[in-house]
């Protein structure tokens, strides 16, 4: 079988990374003026835009819960995001599954009980797809929710990990994904280490699972560090700007 060599004898992958290396993560928050919170995140060539609206009054009053907020996630991939142009369909089952996964992930973390009868909308748009769309979406949504000032118990960081011939590979790109590599998406709360999402759609031998998950956990820790850096840097800039206007910085209030 003319299978692509995903890991060379020298231990390098198709894009030149080592097995336990992430792609470059860069992010920016507050990129959309109209949304209550927003973020743009790149993980290598996978690019996501996340917008958060709310907590606001429920669009459908019948859906409102009297004791907590509902979270609504919309996940779309741009027609131009993949190598082959693919028009977006309204009820794409694959997309709906991703929406449910992301919604459940954030319902476990967002402090919904302090926003009764409200709705929080998370819109996720893939601008460019190069593998690991779900993990990128979760990371972008975390940043957007923090930017929106929505109360969360912790960051949610997500990471994918694959396994090629017994060697776990961190953060698969599209080429590695499309070779039928078993791939796990893991989302954790980095401070408590709790797992909020774990998902795999192929088979992996039990003996390889622990090592693979260990690497996924390490990846999550790295991503957490990176996201935290982004949040704190933008916070410092904000405090600096506020400080220029008033000498007594009493709170970080933004218009």
């Amino acid at each position, binding site marked *: 079988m003319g299978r692509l060599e995903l890991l060379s004898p020298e231990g390098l992958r198709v894009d030149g990374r080592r097995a336990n290396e992430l792609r470059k993560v860069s992010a920016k928050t507050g990129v959309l003026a109209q949304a209550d919170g927003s973020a743009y995140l790149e993980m290598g060539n996978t690019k996501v835009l996340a917008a958060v609206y709310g907590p606001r009054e429920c669009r459908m009053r019948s859906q409102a819960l009297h004791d907590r907020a509902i979270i609504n996630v919309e996940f779309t991939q741009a027609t131009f995001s993949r190598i082959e142009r693919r028009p977006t369909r309204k009820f794409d089952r694959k997309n709906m599954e991703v929406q449910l996964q992301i919604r459940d992930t954030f319902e476990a973390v967002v402090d919904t009980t302090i926003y009764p009868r*409200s709705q929080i909308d998370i819109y996720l748009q893939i601008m460019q797809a190069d593998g690991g769309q779900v993990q990128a979406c979760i990371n972008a949504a975390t940043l957007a929710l923090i930017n929106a000032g929505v109360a969360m118990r912790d960051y949610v960081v997500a990471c994918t990990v694959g396994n090629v011939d017994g060697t776990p590979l961190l953060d698969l790109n599209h080429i590695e994904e499309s070779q039928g590599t078993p791939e796990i998406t893991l989302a954790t709360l980095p401070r408590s280490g709790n797992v909020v999402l774990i998902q795999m759609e192929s088979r992996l031998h039990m003996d390889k699972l622990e090592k693979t998950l260990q690497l996924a956990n390490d990846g999550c820790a790295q991503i957490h560090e990176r996201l935290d850096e982004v949040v704190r840097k933008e916070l410092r800039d904000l*405090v600096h700007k506020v400080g220029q206007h008033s000498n007594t910085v009493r709170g970080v*209030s933004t218009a």
Partner: protein
Amino acid sequence: MSTRIVVPGERLGPARPDQTLQAGTYLRGGNVVATVVGAVGADDQVSVQGKSRKAAIPTVGAQVTGKVKRINSRMAIVSIMMIGAQPVKEDFEGVIRVENVRATERDKVQIPKCFRPGDIVRAEVISLGEAHSYILSTAKNELGVIFAQSAAGATMIPISWEEMQCPVTGAIENRKVCQIENTSQ
């Protein structure tokens, strides 16, 4: 700089038994932990002051301010613009039913003699209502019309709790007037 800035999930300190949880925090394994980005409050009670934007949604008992959109013989439909002192992002719809206009002689109330479209009204939320609107009440002295324009277009002056007078034409119109507490100037 003296203020400490925290991010969600960051530990603020151990929880004391006498402590009540403040906004922007939660309890995890005996520790108080931040849930939003913000500055830690300076007082003894640990709290996190994040973005100064709470979800402004009417609750039962809240005082709201709104504009009368339209009236009919049974109710006045109000567009709620403020909840307490906080402006809302997008207006909510509220309804003042004829029986909730005033506290006495409820059966003699006629809506056109109490509200006109365009009036600014202060009211209280008495129920969250059904599908579309909140049920409001003005059956208190300190609730009712706080601003109204006469047919001539001038801002009317309240002359009793039931009447307002136009300063231009001297015409007297009926309103359920709000008694505004004395503000020393």
